[in-house]
C-alpha cells in the first residue's frame, strides 16, 4: 500500500473543499484533495450550475411562447421547437467546462487531487480507494467537506419515476406532467423551469405557503407567476405515495386526492453526509444531524476542521467557499474567524428573490424600532423596458442610528443586485450611505437607492 504524507487533507471536492484546497496550495501548504466523484460537488455537478443552465434554457424557450410580451415588442413567430437532448448536452458541456476548470485551478495551486472514496481512520489518517490503487494518507490537518445529499421521504423512496433533484436535472426528456413535493427553493426553481419547458406541474407543500423561509411579501410575486404559468399549488398537503402515474396526496383536511403525474420530484430538503466514510471513528461532537463547529470551523478534535453543508444550515455554496478559504488561512497560521455580518441567499425562481440580512419582523425582534423602505419596480424605468415590472427592493434599518439591517428584493434578475446588498451590510452602511451613493441610470439598482431614500422619508420617484 502506498503511503502519502501531507500537511492538509481535504475530504470532498465541492465548493468548500476545492476552495480550501486552492487557497491552501497558494499559501504553500502541502495539500491533498480527495473526491469520490467529479470535482465541484453538488453545486457544480447536480445543483446550482446545472439548475441555472436549465432555468436559462427554460426561460429562453418560454419567452418565445408568451405572445402578449412579444406582441408588445412587435415580434411574432411560429411556436418554437425544443430539442431537449441538445439542451441537456449544452448544460453538461458547461458543467464539464467548470469541472475541468476546477481541476486546472487545483493543479495550478499545486494541490494533489485523488479520485476515490476516503475512509477516515482517525483525525490524522485516511484510507483512499483511489483509481490508482489503495492509498494511505497521513496529514497534520484534516478538513471534512463531505457536503449533503437530497433527503428522502419514507413514502417516496428515490428510484424509478420518483426523482431527487439530481435525477431531475439528468432527465433526458421533459416529462408531460410533474408533481413536485416540497415548495422550498429547490422544488420551486425546478418546478417553474419544467413548467416553462412544457410540463404540467403541480406543487405539493406541507406548510401553508410556498417558500416558507421567506416572508410573504417577498413570495407574493412568485405566487402570482406560478398562477400565470398554470402551475397548480396544493398547500398544507402531505404526499402519501406514488404509483402508476399518480401521486396520492392528503390535503389540509385529510381528504385524499390523486395527482396525475408521469414523474414525482421530491425536494424536501438536504441531509448532511456524515456517514459512510468512517466519521464515526473520530467521535466528533455533533450539533443535531450536523458536525458542530466554532467560529473558526474547528470541530471538537484538534486540527480537524469541517466546512460546508456537513456543518448545517444555511447550506449554501458561497458559505462553504468562505469557510474553506478561512480554514486554509488558519492552517497557514493566519488569525481568522467567520465573523460575517450577512449571508446572502438567492432563490432563482421567476421572479428571483434575494435575501440579505434581517427581514422586518426579525429586525424588529432584534433591534426594536425599525425603518422600512420599499420601492416597486413598476416605478423603475429600466424594469419597464425589460418587461419586468413585478417585484421590489426593500430595505430595513434601525430607527435609532439608521444602520441597514436587511435588504430584500424580488424581481427578474435581482440576483445580480445581491453584491451591492451584501457589500452594504458587510461595510455597515447606514441609510444615508446608500442614499448618498450614485446609482447608475437606467438600471434596476436604482430601486435600491430609492428604497433607502424612502426609508429616510424622502423618496424621489414614488
Amino acid at each position, binding site marked *: 500500500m502506498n503511503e502519502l504524507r501531507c500537511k492538509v487533507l481535504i475530504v470532498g471536492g465541492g465548493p468548500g473543499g476545492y476552495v480550501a484546497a486552492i487557497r491552501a496550495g497558494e499559501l504553500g501548504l502541502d495539500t491533498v484533495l480527495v473526491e469520490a466523484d467529479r470535482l465541484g460537488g453538488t453545486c457544480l455537478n447536480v445543483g446550482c450550475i446545472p439548475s441555472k443552465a436549465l432555468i436559462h434554457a427554460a426561460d429562453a424557450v418560454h419567452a418565445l411562447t408568451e405572445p402578449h410580451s412579444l406582441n408588445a415588442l412587435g415580434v411574432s413567430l411560429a411556436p418554437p421547437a425544443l430539442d431537449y437532448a441538445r439542451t441537456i448536452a449544452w448544460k453538461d458541456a458547461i458543467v464539464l467546462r467548470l469541472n475541468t476548470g476546477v481541476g486546472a485551478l487545483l493543479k495550478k495551486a499545486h494541490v494533489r487531487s485523488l479520485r476515490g472514496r476516503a475512509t477516515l481512520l482517525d483525525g490524522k489518517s485516511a484510507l483512499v480507494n483511489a483509481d490508482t490503487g489503495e492509498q494511505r494518507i497521513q496529514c497534520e490537518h484534516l478538513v471534512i467537506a463531505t457536503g449533503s445529499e437530497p433527503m428522502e421521504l419514507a413514502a417516496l423512496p428515490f428510484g424509478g419515476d420518483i426523482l431527487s433533484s439530481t435525477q431531475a436535472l439528468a432527465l433526458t426528456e421533459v416529462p408531460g406532467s410533474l408533481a413536485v413535493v416540497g415548495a422550498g427553493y429547490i422544488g420551486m426553481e425546478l418546478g417553474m423551469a419544467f413548467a416553462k419547458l412544457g410540463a404540467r406541474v403541480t406543487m405539493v407543500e406541507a406548510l401553508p405557503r410556498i417558500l416558507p423561509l421567506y416572508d410573504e411579501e417577498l413570495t407574493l410575486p412568485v405566487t402570482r407567476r406560478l398562477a400565470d404559468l398554470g402551475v397548480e399549488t396544493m398547500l398544507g398537503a402531505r404526499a402519501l405515495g406514488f404509483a402508476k402515474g399518480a401521486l396520492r396526496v392528503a390535503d389540509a383536511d385529510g381528504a385524499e386526492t390523486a395527482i396525475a403525474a408521469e414523474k414525482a420530484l421530491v425536494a424536501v430538503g438536504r441531509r448532511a453526509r456524515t456517514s459512510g466514510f468512517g466519521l464515526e471513528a473520530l467521535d466528533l461532537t455533533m450539533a443535531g444531524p450536523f458536525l458542530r463547529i466554532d467560529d473558526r470551523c474547528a470541530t471538537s478534535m484538534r486540527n480537524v476542521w469541517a466546512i460546508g453543508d456537513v456543518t448545517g444550515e444555511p447550506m449554501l455554496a458561497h458559505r462553504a467557499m468562505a469557510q474553506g478559504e478561512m480554514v486554509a488561512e488558519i492552517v497557514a497560521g*493566519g*488569525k*481568522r*474567524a467567520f*465573523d*460575517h*455580518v450577512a449571508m446572502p441567499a438567492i432563490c432563482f425562481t421567476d421572479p428571483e428573490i434575494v435575501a440579505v440580512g434581517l427581514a422586518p419582523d426579525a429586525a424588529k425582534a432584534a433591534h426594536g424600532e425599525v425603518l422600512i423602505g420599499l420601492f416597486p419596480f413598476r416605478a423603475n424605468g429600466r424594469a419597464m423596458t425589460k418587461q419586468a415590472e413585478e417585484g421590489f427592493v426593500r430595505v430595513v434599518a434601525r430607527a*435609532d*442610528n*439608521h*444602520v441597514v439591517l436587511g435588504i430584500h428584493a424580488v424581481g427578474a434578475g435581482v440576483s445580480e443586485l445581491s453584491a451591492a446588498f451584501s457589500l452594504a451590510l*458587510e*461595510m*455597515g452602511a*447606514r441609510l*444615508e*450611505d446608500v442614499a448618498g451613493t450614485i446609482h447608475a441610470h437606467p438600471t434596476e439598482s436604482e430601486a435600491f437607492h430609492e428604497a433607502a431614500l424612502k426609508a429616510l422619508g424622502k423618496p424621489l420617484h414614488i
Partner: protein
Amino acid sequence: MGQRSIRMPDVGEGVAEAEIVEWSVKVGDVVREDQVVAAVMTDKATVEIPTPVAGTVLALGGGVGDVLAVGSELIRIDAPGMPDSPPPAPRKSGAAKPETPAPAAAPVDEAPPAQTPASIASPPPRAVPSAPQIGAPRPPGERPFASPAVRARARETGVDLRFVRGSGPAGRITRDDLEAFIARPPEAPAKRTGKEPIMAVETIKVVGLRRRIAQNMAESSRRVAHFSYVEEVDVTALEDLRASLNARATEERPKLTMLPFLMLAIVKAVADFPQVNAHYDDDGDVITRFGAVHLGVATQTPVGLMVPVVRHAEALSLHECAREMRRVSEAARQGVAAREELSGSTITLTSLGALGGVASTPVVNRPEVAIVGVNKIVVRPVWRDGGFVPRKTMNLSSSFDHRVVDGYDAATFIQRVRTLIETPASLFIEANSF
C-alpha cells in the same frame, strides 16, 4: 365610497388639545362602527376614542406622543356608502395649535384662565425625530461595527474590537480608530476585578403621563417661588389611638393608616388659614380661596406619579376619608380614575410611608399654593419632665408658594397641624365647640 374624517373630540371642559397615547389600529385596518381606534390623554385623564363609522383606515393624524388640537383630524376612514366629510371649518383663533411649530420666542397660547389645577401651557412643538447617535458607546452584546478589512486587521493584531471606540457614523470603527488603539492601547487595568464597564445606553421617548409629569413639574419649579418648612411632630398619642382603633378593626371600619388623621388635621387647620387652601392664577393675578377642601393625594402608579383627589374632605369622617382615599388612589393605580377624580384639588398631601425619610422638599402642585409632606415615624429620645423618654416622632416637610404665602403664615399653619396631631382628641371636637 366616502372618506370620513374623525376629528379630535372635545374630551373635557376647557381642553384645547390632547395627546395621542395609543393607536389600536393602523393604516389599512378594517374597523367596525364603535370600535376603539385610539387613546388620547388630556391633562391627566385618558379617553378612548371610538369610530362612528365602519370602513378602512386611510390615514392617522399623528403618531404616539403627538399633541393634536381639538377639532383637528385624528383619523381618516374610507367608509363605503358615506358622503365625504366636509373640509374642516376655519378654526377659532387661539384654539388650535399652529400648523408649523411656533418659534420659541413667540408668545405661547395659554388656555383660558385655568379651570383645572393641572392644566398647563401649550406643549412645546412636536419634537423632531431624534438625531442618530454618533459615536455612541455600544450596549453590551452588540457586535462591534467595522468593515471586513478592519475586522481582519484587528484579528491579525490581536485586538478585540469590542474595546475599541468607533468614531464613524453609528459608532463604526474606522481603520484610523483601530490604528490609534494599536498605537496607544489603554492602560491595562492594575488588577482584574471581574468587573467590567457597562456601555449600555437606552433612549426612552418621554410620552403620555411621563411627559405631563415632566411639564407640570418643570412649570411648577419655574414659576413657583418654593420654600420648604420642616417641623417635628410627636405622634405618640396619635399612634396609641391608631393602635387601639386598629385593634378593634372590622370589615366596615378597616385598619387605618396615618394619612386619614393627617387629612382631618389639614381640614381643621385650613379653616383658619384659607390662604393655603387656594389657587394662584399667576397670569391673571388672581387668588381663589376655597371653602371646600379637595385634598390631592400624591400616588405612585405603574405609569408614574398621579394625584387623585378626595373631594370635600371637610365633609368626611375619619373612616370616610380613609375609604375615599383608598378608592381614588386604587382607581388611579388601575388607570380607571375619572377625570374629576384626577383634577380639582385645592391642597395636596404627599407621603412615601416607610420610605418617607427624615425631610423632603415637595414640589407644589400648581396652581395650588401648599403641599404637605409626611416623613417616616421614628422613636427618638425626647427631653420631658427632667429626663429623656422614648417618643414616636415624625417630621412634616411642607412647601409653599412664597409669592402668595408668607413664611409666618405657613409656619403657624404647620404649627396648628402639629398641635392637632399631638392632641388627637382635638381632631374630633367640632370646630365651634373647640
